[in-house]
């Protein structure tokens, strides 16, 4: 996984961190999308 290495750092670690960021951002985006729908229900 050479694409994930940052300035010669451990690329496995960078790979895992990228995965965490990706998942978290997706969760955040879906939560933000849910705001208008939650309001309408009330």
């Amino acid at each position, binding site marked *: 996984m050479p694409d994930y290495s*940052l*300035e010669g*750092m*451990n690329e496995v*670690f*960078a790979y895992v*961190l*990228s995965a*965490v*960021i990706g*998942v*978290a*951002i997706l*969760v*955040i985006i879906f*939560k*933000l999308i*849910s*705001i208008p729908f*939650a309001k309408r229900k009330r």
Partner: protein
Amino acid sequence: MIPEWIPEWLEEKDSYTPPSDGGAFYIRTIKSIGAAMSRLRIQRGHEKKYALPAIVKFILLVCAILLLSINHNGMIMLFFAAILQAYLCTWPAHDIWNILKASGAAGIIAFILFLPAMIILPQNISNNLAVVIKVFLSMEMLSIFNHTTQWNHITGALKKLHIPAIFIFTLDITLKYIVLLGTLIQDLLTSLELRSVGKNNKKYQSIGGVMGVTFIRGAEMSGEMYEAMCCRGFTDDYKE
């Protein structure tokens, strides 16, 4: 008692269109500033039951921001981004939105500031983007801290760090009164808007009146606050 007939002059149709008023631009500007000021609440967040003490959080925050801004290593940035997003995604949606609004605005402003540099020197673009991301992450941390800590606990933490009481006092009162005066300006301009139909040829007088009333109210408020604090035995010192 209701009369059975309606007088004729009441049945006539009126077609009155007030002459359009051109230069209301600055009234709207001041009103939006007032609205922004009154929206600036000091504390709308929540503090969890088993939260870290505010002073620990404060020191951690300062250390984290320093580490993030001094470091040139991309790995640290990635690490911070991962931890922050992972923590933030466990929150309720509304709180996430509040946090992201503040930090996103800061990030966008930083991006706009760096845009000319990025266009002129495209070889430095990664460096500039790193700064933008650092600004965003720092603001995110700051908003999370602000959101999870009660304001009085923050002042307590500042006091424990031996910051002089006069600084804390100024900060405290300024933040509270910005909100109060913003609400006042907004109310005054709303009433002005409601009362002035059509063309107002004395706009500067009205604006001067609004500013004058705000100033007088501010002076009154400071006097009232002084008396209230005397009554409560405030000794110019904050509790640790």
